[in-house]
């Protein structure tokens, strides 16, 4: 049974309201931080905790905070990245829907630690009803003296605003998010300068994921050392995993990092095994961008140890035999799922979501989409598989932001581990079309609108 640091009070009645949240010890981290700690001391605790960015990159949060430039007379900003759009990921939504005050509390403490007096929660526009939930929580916190001028008599001022996006996956990339928050197209910026030096309106800015911010109150209340005791190695603390696909119990689960993957996939406490008595075929363990792992590589690492749900263990073996923890979007495929079709689907996603700035991504994703469409619809040949490999290799590492890599990796992994399935499509063109999942027509004809 994993500890519940984030979701402990999720089933408390009326936990959406301030009173219930407060009665369960809510906002004590704000009192502790503002009355007894210096901003530097909080940054130090977060460093000690080993907390890593929960949006997908896994960068140490305390280190990110310590990079924040602090020039005299220039405001600093904290922006919460709630633009959760990675296919397979729905944990931030769950956290915000169920425990909005936890995010607000985390934003207050984190803003104080960073010396920000105005902070924003940038949330994807499709989560519009959550904007209302968060704004209500912000208003309640303000009415109770936890936001606004001179919070708890400490002399610290903070305003917190919720900003909806307009529907664009790319705005989950932090510099694209900042562009979007400035009222522009979500085109990622060249780095350096990094947001820590020139971010929102050219001021020093920290951008953190919802789950990262939500972990801060516990760290402030219980110390970074206590947090670091949970988990395994450099994967400290707990992580929210969004489980979807062909499993018995899809949903959001909070796990101690280091939980064996076998237990996560098959125990009734979590995914509950593969649905409908089917066989387990493959898993994408960290959101659509990370490499797909076939069943035989999933349970054991390259040197034969049991694989664990941690940053290091899931990445063990590099891309040859491993994958990544990423955002924790855990997508499971049963024997009936077609890897070629899924790769085509994901490539359509990246092609649709490419901002169009960099040629390798803009043109490369479209090219891969056409080749994958050919193969999936029984019009491919063997050279197409090598062509795909070649295209993805030329996208990876050649773009301003990681969307190019994110588009390349799923294609590379699918060919690496399931080449025979691509070849089957080439050799059995008629069957590709007959199979067609009971659909009357090809869904490629779906418009891009």
């Amino acid at each position: 049974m994993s500890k519940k640091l984030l979701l402990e009070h999720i089933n408390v009645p009326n936990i959406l309201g301030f009173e219930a949240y407060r009665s369960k010890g809510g906002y004590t981290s704000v009192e502790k931080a503002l009355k007894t700690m210096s901003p530097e001391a909080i940054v130090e605790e977060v460093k000690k905790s080993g907390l890593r960015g929960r949006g997908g990159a896994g960068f140490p949060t305390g280190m990110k905070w310590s990079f924040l430039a602090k020039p005299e007379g220039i405001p600093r900003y904290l922006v919460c990245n709630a633009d959760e759009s990675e296919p397979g990921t729905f944990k931030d939504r769950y956290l915000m829907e169920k425990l909005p005050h936890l995010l607000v509390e985390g934003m207050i403490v984190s803003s104080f630690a960073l010396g920000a007096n105005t902070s924003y929660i940038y949330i994807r526009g499709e989560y519009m009803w959550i904007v209302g939930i968060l704004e209500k929580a912000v208003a309640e916190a303000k009415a109770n003296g936890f936001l606004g001028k001179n919070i708890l008599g400490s002399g610290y001022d903070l305003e917190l605003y919720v900003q909806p996006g307009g529907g664009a996956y790319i705005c989950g990339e932090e510099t694209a998010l900042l562009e979007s928050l400035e009222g522009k197209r979500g085109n990622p910026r060249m780095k350096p300068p990094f947001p820590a030096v020139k971010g929102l309106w050219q001021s020093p800015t920290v951008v953190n994921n919802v789950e990262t911010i939500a972990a801060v109150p516990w760290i402030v209340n219980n110390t970074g050392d206590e947090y670091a005791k949970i988990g395994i190695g450099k994967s400290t603390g707990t992580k929210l995993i969004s489980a979807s696909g062909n499993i018995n119990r899809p949903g959001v689960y909070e796990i101690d990092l280091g939980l064996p993957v076998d237990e996560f996939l098959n125990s009734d406490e979590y995914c509950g095994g593969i649905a409908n008595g089917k066989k387990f075929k493959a898993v994408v363990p960290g959101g659509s961008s990370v490499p797909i792992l076939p069943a035989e590589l999933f349970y054991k690492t390259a040197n034969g140890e049991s694989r664990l749900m941690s940053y290091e263990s899931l990445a063990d073996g590099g891309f040859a035999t491993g994958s990544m923890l990423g955002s924790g979007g855990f997508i499971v495929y049963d024997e009936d799922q077609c890897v070629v079709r899924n790769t085509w689907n994901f490539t359509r996603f990246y092609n649709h979501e490419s901002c169009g700035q960099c040629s390798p991504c803009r043109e490369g994703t479209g090219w891969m989409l056409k080749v994958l469409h050919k193969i999936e619809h029984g019009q491919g040949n063997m050279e197409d598989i090598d062509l795909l490999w070649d295209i993805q290799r030329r996208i990876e590492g050649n773009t301003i932001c990681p969307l190019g890599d994110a588009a390349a990796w799923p294609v590379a992994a699918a060919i690496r581990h399931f080449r025979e399935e691509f070849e089957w499509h080439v050799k059995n063109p008629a069957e590709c079309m007959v199979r067609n999942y009971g659909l009357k027509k090809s869904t490629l004809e779906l418009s891009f609108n």
Partner: protein
Amino acid sequence: MGNTYDTRTKEVTAKIPFPQDLLDKIEEITKRYPAGKQKSALIPVLHLAQKHNDGWLSIPVMDYVADLLQITPIEVYEVATFYTMFNLKPVGKYVLEVCRTGPCCTRGAEKMIEYIEQKTNCKVGGNSADGLFTIKAVECLGACGYAPMLQLGDSFVEFLTEEKVDSLINELKNK
């Protein structure tokens, strides 16, 4: 300034100027940013403008928003065309946005899209003849654990089945 009409169809394309309560709301949003950074309000304001303007953004509405935020019209157009939630042509009374991305497809999203097309007599990307429905196939909406799903206005309808689609469509038709 009053309502703008399409010269051919005589349909209203822009309900401008905005009513006072909407203008007040926009004023409040622009105050969330430092002085001179009111452009940051653009996306939240476009959402409000689209809701007010029967679900879509016409050129006159975008020009009007540019005026309100003291930015140039092109700054509004380039944003409105970039983000998928903004509709640049008229939509039906109810916009059904069905997820078509991988995790939903493992649980039958593609069949569900076909079924919805058939029930509403409306193709993806188009509007139904009775003006009631617009069907969009969209990318991941963050409901993969509750697939297949669709978005209707500000809410999600999850764990879609044919029965659920039937009752939703009937309910909307009789509203």
